[in-house]
């Protein structure tokens, strides 16, 4: 017992003050990408050609960047002859609607809180059942990490529970494989209404690297309605936490500052 207490003292206090204080992201962190269109040579489509998931598309000189498909990889950055693409430190990326993740010379519209009625139900206590439906254990790991003392998810009233019967909603990862489709649907049906669904990661939003494979269904919203999309491959734990807290109305301002 004495040894355990000494260890406790040695390990120190580790819970971060988020959302009161800004987290420090690693300097090479790849947050929201920015494309400086004015640098683009006429007719250049190198980034669109390099993108592994067609997150970048160019039609008639109109560039669309779909954060839902984006793997936040470096392929577009490396392909750009003018260094017009860079990743920022902006980790706040979650949105309520799929179309809000498509950037077309507009700013990202971040997730808004649930309607008053649902928020009254879930705002102070949200129990989630996690379903991995083809996830690679990247998103699952960084969801799990929210339970550690660093993020201490419990202090926000959010908890992962063992049964859909105990849950207020689902947190889904993975592109929804054909072999998990019915299990996901059954789990959704087993959650009592009203319920919410959160799709975490590029796979759960649009299929990720597996988009258009015959073995997968290109994301959670092909099977169940989704209330919150959290982009990333995998999203940083802060991105997920920020999304959850926005949904509950704990963070309300649009840019966090």
């Amino acid at each position, binding site marked *: 017992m004495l040894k355990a207490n000494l260890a406790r003292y040695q390990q120190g206090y580790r819970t971060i003050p988020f959302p009161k204080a800004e987290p420090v992201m690693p300097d*090479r962190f790849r947050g929201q990408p920015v494309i400086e269109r004015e640098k683009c040579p006429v007719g250049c489509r190198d980034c669109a050609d390099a993108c592994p998931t067609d997150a970048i598309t160019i039609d008639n000189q109109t560039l669309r960047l779909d954060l839902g498909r984006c793997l936040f990889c470096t392929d577009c950055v490396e392909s750009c002859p003018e260094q017009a693409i860079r990743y920022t430190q902006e980790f706040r990326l979650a949105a309520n609607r799929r179309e809000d993740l498509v950037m077309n010379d507009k700013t990202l519209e971040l997730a808004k809180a649930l309607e008053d009625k649902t928020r009254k139900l879930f705002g102070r206590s949200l129990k989630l059942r996690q379903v*991995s439906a083809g996830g690679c254990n990247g998103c699952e*790991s960084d969801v799990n990490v929210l339970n550690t003392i660093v993020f201490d998810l419990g202090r926000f009233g959010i908890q992962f529970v063992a049964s859909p019967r105990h849950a207020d909603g689902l947190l889904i990862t993975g592109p929804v494989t054909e072999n*998990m489709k019915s*299990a996901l649907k059954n789990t959704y049906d087993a959650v009592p209404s009203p319920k919410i669904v959160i799709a975490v990661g590029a796979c759960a939003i649009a299929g990720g690297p597996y988009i258009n*494979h015959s073995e997968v269904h290109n994301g959670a919203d092909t099977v169940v309605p989704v209330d919150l999309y959290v982009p990333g491959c995998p999203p*940083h734990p802060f991105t997920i936490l920020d999304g959850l807290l926005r949904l509950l109305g704990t963070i309300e301002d649009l840019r966090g500052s």
Partner: protein
Amino acid sequence: MAATLSIHASNGERIALETVPRLSISDFHDLVTGSVRGGARITALFGQPQGGGTVRLFAVLADGNAGTLSLSSTDVASDYPSLTPECPQAHWFEREIAEQFGVIPQGHPWLKPIRYQSSRRGITNFFQVAGEEIHEVAVGPVHAGVIEPGHFRFQCHGENVLHLEIALGYQRRGVERALNGGPNKRTIHYMETLAGDTTIGHATAYCQAVEALANCQPPARAQALRGVALELERLANHTGDLGALAGDVGYLPTASFCGRIRGDFLNMTALLCGSRFGRGFVRPGGVGFDVDDARVTQLLEKIEQALRDVTVATSLLWSTSSVRARFENAGTISPKTCKELGLVGPVARASGLERDVRQEFPFGIYRFFQVPVSTFQTGDVFARAYVRWLEIQRSVAFVRDQLKTLPPGSIRAEMKPLAAEAVALSLVEGWRGEICHVAMTNQHGRFSHYKIVDPSFHNWFGLAMAMRDQQISDFPLCNKSFNLSYCGHDL
């Protein structure tokens, strides 16, 4: 004998496809069973359709003592005599081949699909034990924790587990099929997400394979940095596993400390490349990010701190009797079972087998810097936990050495086109064990076949065996002591 029956290759070497011997089925049978009797293990056994209903079977055999990898092949049609009755470690591979191509290994004791692809062949029921008071427990695919899906079917008598059957395939995303015709712009992203917690391991195995095919030598600095990233991946996962094992026996101090320290290791990988899982770091020809002196100093400080923290956190496990009482004698696997089933990684090492690709078939930086193999003798949950702790210490020592002696120079060599009609074997010791990639090219230098064997493919059946004659309540603990990948298996 072996020289004519199979071709030797070293890890990360290219060989011309035409030089791979094509044996009769009986010679192939004798080669595989004879080599395994002689101490080799089956690293990969897979089929490639040849058209006209013929399937070519390839076997990659690894003899750790001799340090040789060998490759051989045979053509089969609708069926062939199963290798499994004489060589149990072939069983899962033969089930895979039967499911994928409809080739029946005659005499296979339990020919059931392993991934439930559209073509369902063979047995589809679960193995059942009958008798008075025998009952069945079904768990999954949706589990209680935040983990991947799989189904576990227990045959029990009271609390006692007589048999566990593990049904996988829920995670199948069609990776191997999609790799054919590559490499293309998605290939590296498939590799990085085969098993997301083994991003560095699988990406390194892939890069080694294509570098061999392209005759491209990554610079020494890149090799050293790959080694650093691979060991950081091992450190993060081993630390997380020790914490989770503590959590599964209700010992919360270590569970909460290690959960946090695991994140510290992941953040070191993020310091390298911006991603906690190492996405974007390992690239064909080298690595995607360099480190300057300031970053090296930062990494060295962080790893020393993390080692101090993890030492304190895990030493509690070894000195707490309530933890040891649960860890010891739980889920024991004998060295004999390990050998017969061809288990790999910390699971095999915990049963005393000195199996470690870094030592047996050194690759990249491990050709010049050795990491001692960590083993333990008891083969139980305690051994699997303790081997992880030994490996944590050795990985930290390795990372420290590498960072202090990083070779100068560039971090990436230019990739060339892949050789045509060639095959490359690539093995990496990931944190779960032996990762094997086999890349074959067609006449245009594109992948005609790409085979991936995640360590979990070997080890899932080991978990089933470890549960025999155990209390069902010890399943979460045993499962965590293996901590296998579902998506790495299902692909």
